[in-house]
């Protein structure tokens, strides 16, 4: 079969028929043939883990890799808020169409209609599946599933397990996978990092991995490779991602011919704990669900902000009318529940004007206040319990208990980190890098431009457009892994049945070459006679990225970023110093990842420079409305930007392609949350 590898393969027909029709055209692999087919999966988070469990269940032979010591530690475990599904359990008129509409609009019309619709359709199945697996979702007193709402929507469609939804979903998927490991259908490679993808006859046929315990380089061959390696937010150094999150797997795919889509779309999450100092290693998220019950404000008067920063006033000293609930003021119909990009920029705007309430270097931080909730909920509860002459103390107590039941672990975490008790004083929050909407370009089947290389979960680009609404990444990861890839990959693998079913030998010269390349790079890093540690370069890169490619961007800044990154990269290869030898060596692991970030960072900046409009998380200062809102340009930029690595050339010479976005069913509207 010949692959024309840059066709989105969007099926014909109306939105609600597309997936059904498409499935009926996909080829099948019969059960007795599946065990003859090998699939490699990189990543054991929600997307990779669910794909592994299901493909093994179907009978394929799976090898799965992760860099942690157990698949249960993939960063999906950290997701706090919840997972969306259009079940309309709350009877607030939710539907597949409504979820589709919110997601398309939330992504600022920069995602594919057909993918988003499929996601909305599948969402219901995911919840059923997870309940069957024993995920202890929140229940109401009648025993039915409970929901809450998230930013960018007007219905309650988010399913949750306190503030640990990702953990519970991941553990379920890890269990399902473990069952198949026990059966011998899955072979798990923990503490292994994929360092290259091996292409033979133009198709993905294996990987090169490094055993992180002894440093050995291994070759693994297969009939197809699925990349599920998560997001690349750590290119900014400080982010809400785990310390090990990296771009190496997708970057290697990119350099071997996988196109990279929309690299500049980085979601900045509005409710993180503000930065404390320059020793800091990461930022911690406070789930967005807190915005359901917390109100965001800064003082109206700049003097008050100053007094608070200096510790001469506390939040309680600021009277109600002296507070600026700026989201409620600017966006009356959504208020505190505007989408993430809008909430983040609004916080930045206030802090840039000097109203920040945190006493750190940048004076960046706003209040997230639960006083109103405590009062309201406490009162309701006293009524419910029939306490007639309730006093303020009882109300406060019951209100705080309500908060604890809903968000206990988050409040606990906040107190640990900041040493302040959020039940008594408002939380302080500020936006931080969180999620990357860009990633490897994939078609409707989730296949990249390299035949046989599929990319799922946060590592691909397809479903979220320029901005991701809360609780939809978990949904996408599980939809991809449990329900989409098992169908679409069969279509590709069916080709290997019969006489084609030859295993590729790991002695093939392309394995040889890839391995040599990897080994040379490691040698170069270890033997380099420099004196600067990997962390230094990572922090420097992060500074450049956050300053010029962060919450708002402009032409001059981006041009400077590109130059600075190039300089930094040169400096890295000249002066990097890695202590120790090839074996267990975390500094070497870091350096390998940073080397890739140093290239990806440049591509992100190039993409941001090219997109001369503001959409979703990509805010170009030159393109905004009079009120300072993002100004999209649908005439010129209604496309996915797709980058092709120009073999052997510098990143600055990557080849640019466009995938035009066609909206047959939704009307492109100005995204207003007023």
């Amino acid at each position: 079969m010949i692959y024309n590898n840059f066709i989105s393969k969007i099926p014909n027909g109306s939105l609600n028929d597309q997936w059904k029709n498409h499935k009926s055209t996909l080829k099948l692999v019969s059960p007795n043939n599946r065990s003859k087919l090998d699939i490699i999966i990189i990543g054991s988070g929600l997307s990779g883990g669910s794909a592994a469990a299901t493909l093994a269940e179907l009978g394929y032979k799976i090898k799965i890799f992760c860099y942690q010591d157990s698949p249960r530690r993939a960063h999906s475990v950290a997701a706090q808020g919840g997972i969306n599904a259009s079940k309309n359990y709350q009877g607030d008129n939710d539907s597949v169409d409504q979820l589709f509409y919110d997601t398309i609009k939330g992504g600022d019309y920069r995602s594919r209609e057909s993918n988003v619709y499929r996601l909305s359709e599948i969402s219901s199945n995911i919840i059923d599946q997870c309940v069957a697996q024993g995920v202890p979702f929140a229940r109401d007193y009648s025993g039915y599933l409970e929901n809450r709402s998230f930013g960018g929507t007007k219905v309650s469609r988010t399913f949750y397990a306190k503030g640990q939804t990702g953990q519970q979903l991941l553990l379920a998927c890890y269990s399902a996978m473990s069952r198949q490991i026990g059966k011998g259908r899955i072979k798990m490679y923990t503490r292994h990092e994929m360092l290259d993808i091996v292409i033979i006859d133009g198709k993905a046929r294996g990987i090169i991995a490094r055993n992180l315990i002894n440093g050995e380089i291994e070759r693994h061959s297969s009939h197809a490779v699925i990349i599920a390696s998560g997001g690349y937010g750590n290119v900014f150094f400080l982010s809400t991602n785990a310390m090990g999150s990296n771009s190496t797997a997708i970057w290697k795919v990119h350099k071997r011919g996988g196109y990279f889509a929309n690299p500049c779309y980085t979601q900045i999450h509005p409710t993180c704990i503000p930065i404390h100092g320059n020793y800091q290693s990461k930022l911690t998220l406070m789930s967005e669900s807190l915005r359901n019950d917390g109100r965001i404000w800064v003082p109206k008067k700049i003097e008050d902000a100053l007094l608070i920063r200096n510790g001469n006033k506390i939040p309680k000293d600021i009277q109600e009318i002296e507070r600026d609930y700026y989201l409620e003021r600017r966006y009356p119909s959504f208020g505190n529940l505007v989408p993430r990009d809008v909430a983040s920029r609004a916080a930045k705007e206030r802090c840039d004007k000097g109203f920040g309430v945190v006493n750190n270097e940048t004076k960046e931080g706003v209040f997230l206040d639960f006083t109103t909730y405590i009062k309201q909920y406490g009162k309701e509860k006293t009524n419910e319990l029939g306490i007639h002459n309730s006093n303020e103390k009882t109300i406060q107590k019951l209100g705080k208990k309500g908060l604890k039941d809903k968000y206990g672990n988050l409040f606990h975490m906040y107190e640990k980190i900041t040493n302040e008790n959020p039940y008594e004083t408002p939380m302080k929050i500020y936006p931080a890098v969180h999620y990357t909407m860009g990633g490897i370009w994939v078609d409707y089947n989730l296949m990249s431009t390299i035949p046989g290389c599929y990319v799922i979960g946060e590592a691909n680009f397809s479903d979220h457009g320029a901005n991701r609404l809360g609780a939809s990444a978990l949904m996408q990861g599980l939809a991809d892994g449990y329900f989409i890839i098992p169908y679409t990959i069969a279509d590709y693998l069916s080709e290997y049945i019969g006489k084609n079913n030859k295993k590729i030998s790991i002695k093939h010269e392309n394995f040889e070459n890839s391995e040599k390349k990897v080994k040379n790079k490691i040698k170069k890093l270890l033997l380099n006679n420099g004196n600067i540690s990997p962390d230094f370069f990572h922090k420097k890169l992060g500074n450049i990225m956050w300053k010029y490619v962060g919450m708002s961007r402009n032409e001059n800044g981006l041009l400077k970023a590109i130059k600075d990154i190039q300089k930094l990269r040169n400096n890295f290869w000249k002066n990097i110093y890695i202590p120790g030898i090839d074996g267990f060596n975390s500094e070497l692991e870091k350096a390998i990842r940073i080397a890739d970030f140093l290239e990806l960072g440049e591509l992100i900046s190039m993409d941001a420079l090219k997109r001369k409009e503001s959409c979703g998380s990509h805010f170009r200062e030159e393109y905004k409305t009079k009120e300072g809102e993002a100004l999209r340009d649908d005439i010129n930029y209604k496309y996915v930007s797709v980058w092709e690595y120009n073999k052997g050339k510098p990143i600055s010479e990557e080849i640019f392609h466009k995938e035009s976005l066609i909206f047959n069913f939704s009307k492109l509207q100005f995204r207003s949350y007023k």
Partner: protein
Amino acid sequence: MKKLLSFVLKIWRQKNNKEKGKFYTYKVYDVSPNSSFLEMLDLLNNQIINNSKKETPIAFDHDCREGICGMCSLYINGRAHGKENLTTTCQLYMRRFYNINTIYIEPWRAKPFPIIKDLIVDRSSFDRIIMSGGFISVNTLGKTIDGNMIPISKENADKAFDSAVCIGCGACVAACKNRSAMLFVAAKISQFILLPQGKIERKQRVLNMVKKMDEEGFGNCTNTKSCEIECPKGISTENISLMNKEYIQSFI
């Protein structure tokens, strides 16, 4: 800004599982009270890297640094995850060490957790226990019934959740004089017996998991309850009672 702190660290270093390890002494300076325990170790490692080309940084496990992945470990001044309750090592902040001068840092010590390097141990025995039965055998391609067709009382859902939050860090084992993994195993068993979906396989599950736990070389529970005290997620030893009951009943 509060005053910066400095500490004397006595750290266990061991090249690999074959060679013997011992304590080394380090001094770390300029530690902000707001930094986490692991950030303090980052700082020390940077000092080591910058000061000498002979010594290698200290190897320790970590990833999320949010107290949720279970990857960090460390025995700190004789306590798993340090002396603070309900806290993982990554969520331990240096302001808690204000009046302490010397800190002892060791890896988890238990035979089923062999040392890989320095402070890193191999906890894959936990994974093997889960493989032996820590799941509900549902076909993951989703041909299941509607989630609301299985109503579950809020009380049971909440209790199941409380058991389900175990992060598999292994502090319970490290804290136990018998090196028992009962708290870890019991948490999973309880989660599933509290939910109707889990009831079908309950007998087999408890038998298999307990058998595997023994095979891996974990000891038995003698009700000392140090696991409960050190568990960062507050998993209660009630789970162990429940599991024991379940185990005995599985023979009837």
